[in-house]
C-alpha cells in the first residue's frame, strides 16, 4: 500500500468525548494541541500519538489509554 502500512488501531476519542460531554475546542485547549490536530486524531488520520499527548488526553477525559485506542483484528474485520 502506498503511503505506509495499514495499522488496525481505532481511535475512539469521539466516543469518550461524548461520554464526558466535552467539545473538541475545549479538549484541544486542555491538552494543548490545535483543534486541527485533534481532528486528525479523531478521524483516525494520525500515524502516531506521543505519550505526553495521550497522558494529557487521559487526564482531561479521566480515562485509560485503552478507552481511547482499540486494536481491531484485521482477520475479524474481513
Amino acid at each position, binding site marked *: 500500500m502506498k503511503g*505506509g502500512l495499514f495499522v488496525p488501531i481505532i481511535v475512539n476519542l469521539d466516543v469518550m468525548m461524548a461520554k464526558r460531554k466535552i467539545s473538541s475546542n475545549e479538549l484541544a485547549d486542555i491538552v494543548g494541541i490545535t483543534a486541527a490536530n485533534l481532528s486528525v*486524531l479523531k478521524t483516525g*488520520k*494520525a*500515524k*502516531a*500519538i506521543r505519550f505526553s499527548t495521550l497522558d494529557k488526553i487521559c487526564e482531561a477525559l479521566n480515562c485509560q489509554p485503552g478507552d481511547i485506542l482499540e486494536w481491531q483484528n484485521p482477520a475479524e474485520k474481513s
Partner: protein
Amino acid sequence: MWNKTKSLMLSRILVVCFSVMIFMLTFFVPFVADWYEGVSEGMGLIGGSVYVPMMVTLYVCEGLAVWAVAELHILLKNISKGEVFVERNTRCLRGISWACLLAGGAFGIMALWRFLVFLPAFFAVMFGLIMRVLKNVFEQAVEIKSENDFTI
C-alpha cells in the same frame, strides 16, 4: 551577504539561462551536426555519414533537456515556497532521472556510428542513476515527514 534565498535565486536564474541556451541550440543543431561530420573519424559499427544520426540524437536530447529543465524549474519553485519534501518534488526528480537515462540511450544508439559518443552516453546514464538514488532518498524523506506531521 550570501544566503539561502540568494543561492536559490541564482539556481533559478541558471535554469532560465539554460532554457534560453536550449532554445538557441534548436537553430544550431544542423551546424553542430555538420561540424561533427567534418571533424569526426569513422570509427563505429555503422559506417557512412553521421550528419542525420547526429541531428536526430541532438534533437531528441534537446527535447529531453527541455523536460528536465521544466522539472527542475518546478522543483526550485516548490523549494522557494518552502515545500521541500513533497510528493511533487519526488516526481520531478524521477522525471529528471528518466530524461537523463533516455538521453544516455539516445547517445548509446548514436555510438553505433561513432564509438566516442559512448562517453556522453555513459555520463548521462551515470547522472540518471545518481538522480534515481536521490529520488529514492527523497521518497523516504517524504514518508518520514508525513509520519512526523501526523504524529500528534
